[in-house]
């Protein structure tokens, strides 16, 4: 029971790190980015190549995965995404679906369509038990890393100058612009950072979620659930939504395996009908 809760929390935290970048993208520019998972996949595959083929230590490859994904995100944002911000939601959806399809086929072409795994160092494998609760070492690592990241994010978001500018831009980008905040630059930085986080999440999650070229399609709906259910006005909203999703998904698969992902989708639809602005958000001005 507690083991399931533990696994669920690890899963949820992972989802949060993966999706937190999307929360900002969606909230800040009202931009529907279905291709967020592609950046996570990039991070995952970079780690796989670094660890399995080049023999780099696992811990050294994590920051590289973060930086590389952030760089890819930055380049894409400056060259492609920037043209699509002002377009309609339909255009944004078409554009990002197109990117997803291209990324899936590209990875398939270069790295093959089979599922790949990261060789995790021996120290992280196996379980130990604390008063009867089985705790996987790797999942514990995920919880620690993601927990620290969450605290850092919350700190940046709530206590720094950059954070307050970002919040201002999310709340009302027009007024923020009027006050002299360079919303475009904030957005570019945040987009790159969010892509980096997604890449890190993909690197960490390759072991748990499984990594194959269809990753962006498979998890697209999960990221969107986290963001739409959690709302975009705070970090805590998506955080609790991720935990809720992680725990209920793991518990659902364990206790009622016959229902599968059915539970998640149904809950999502109900919540969206009940609170279209998200479970944890204030009434939005938009």
């Amino acid at each position, binding site marked *: 029971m507690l083991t399931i809760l533990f696994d669920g929390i690890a899963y949820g935290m992972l989802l949060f790190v993966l999706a937190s970048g999307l929360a900002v993208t969606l909230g800040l520019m009202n931009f529907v980015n279905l291709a967020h998972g592609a950046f996570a996949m990039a991070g995952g595959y970079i780690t796989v190549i670094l660890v399995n083929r080049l023999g780099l230590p696992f811990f050294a490859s994590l920051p590289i995965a973060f930086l590389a994904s952030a760089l890819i995100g930055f380049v894409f944002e400056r060259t492609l995404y920037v043209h699509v911000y002002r377009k309609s939601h339909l255009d944004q959806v078409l*554009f990002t679906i*197109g990117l*997803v399809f291209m990324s899936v*086929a590209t990875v398939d072409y270069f790295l093959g*369509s089979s599922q790949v795994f990261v060789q995790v160092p021996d120290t992280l494998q196996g379980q130990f038990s604390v008063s009867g609760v089985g705790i996987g070492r790797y999942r514990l690592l995920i919880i620690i890393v993601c927990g620290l990241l969450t605290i850092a994010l919350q700190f940046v978001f709530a206590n720094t100058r950059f954070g307050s500018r970002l919040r201002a831009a999310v709340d009302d980008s027009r007024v923020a612009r009027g006050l002299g905040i360079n919303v475009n630059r904030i957005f570019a930085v945040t987009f790159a950072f969010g892509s980096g986080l997604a890449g890190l999440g993909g690197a960490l999650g390759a072991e748990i979620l499984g990594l194959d070229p269809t990753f962006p399609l498979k998890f697209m709906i999960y990221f969107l659930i986290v963001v739409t259910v959690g709302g975009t006005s705070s970090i805590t909203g998506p955080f609790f939504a991720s935990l809720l999703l992680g725990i209920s998904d793991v518990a659902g698969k364990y206790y009622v395996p016959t229902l*599968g*992902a059915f539970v998640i989708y149904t809950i999502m*639809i109900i919540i*969206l*009908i009940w609170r279209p602005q998200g479970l944890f958000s204030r009434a939005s001005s938009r």
Partner: protein
Amino acid sequence: MTTPARLTIVAATEWLSERARWHPLEFLFWIAAFAAIYLMPSRHLILTEIAWLGLFALSLDLILGYAGIISLGHAAFFGLGAYTAALLAKHEIINEPAAALLIAGVAAMALGFLTSFLVLRGSDLTRLMVTLGVALVLRELANRNGWLTGGADGLQGVTIKPLLGTFRFDMFGHTGYIYCLTVLFILFLLARRMVNSPFGLSLLSVKDNPLRASAIGISVDARLVAVYTVAAGYAGIAGALLAQTTAFASLEVFSFDRSADLLLVLIIGGAGYLYGGLIGAIVFKIMQDYLSALTPQYWPFWIGLVLVVIVLVGRDRITSWTAPIRLFAERLNWRALKRRPAASITEEHLS
């Protein structure tokens, strides 16, 4: 913009009938489609696919082009129609394909009616998620209830009885094409009648500005529910056509890729006029035929590339390749030219 006093009821009626009048190119389109029965007998298989895909795209056009609802889960209705038709045939409940087609359409309409209330609320994003969610739930249901649907293996052992008791579905797709084309034509006529009626016009106003539409007395929600239900029925019939012409139904009918491909089909042809889906289906299938012959596995890459390029170039500019054709069509439309003065005045004020 206020309604000008000049816009009398007479002028409005004239404008409406002008809109609904058959254009010479439309005759040409359908004559070509039916002529293909005799002229291209070796291509009937792909023409069959174009026919049901065109119907499916037409159905999306009704809700996207005319009502402005973005859907990422239109495959839900397509899949329901496909499974309904396949199951009816497999268990020999209804042996007449045309009757089974009707039932499949009604089933999809029922689902469309029920789920239409879910898309009334919320922003584009919420609608995206809800439509996507509905398709995923149905796919999951079909996956889990293997005793009924065959699960991941698909529904096998379906035999479709001869159409109207006489015409067998042959492996060259001759019967299939005539059947699909006829169904498409009938449903197209219905859709054409619908979008040119006052109901269709009110849909356009809802799409442009729901608040204003409700202010002039259009009940927005009721219109959206109605058009969503009809479109779902169309999608269900398209799915049933697929199941009947291939005698097979699998989980793939519900897949996200199918909904995404469909968006591409409609965007290639242009949304918001009924021929967009049909033209898009022709271009898409020919493209698919050609490109997947080159690299079958990496076909998604080309779909993605086309989508990205279309958006970056701009959808208006993409469909502008039809501009010379439209100009030509304008000249060709001699009956409209005679009335031009009256029609142009009213058109200015209405647009």
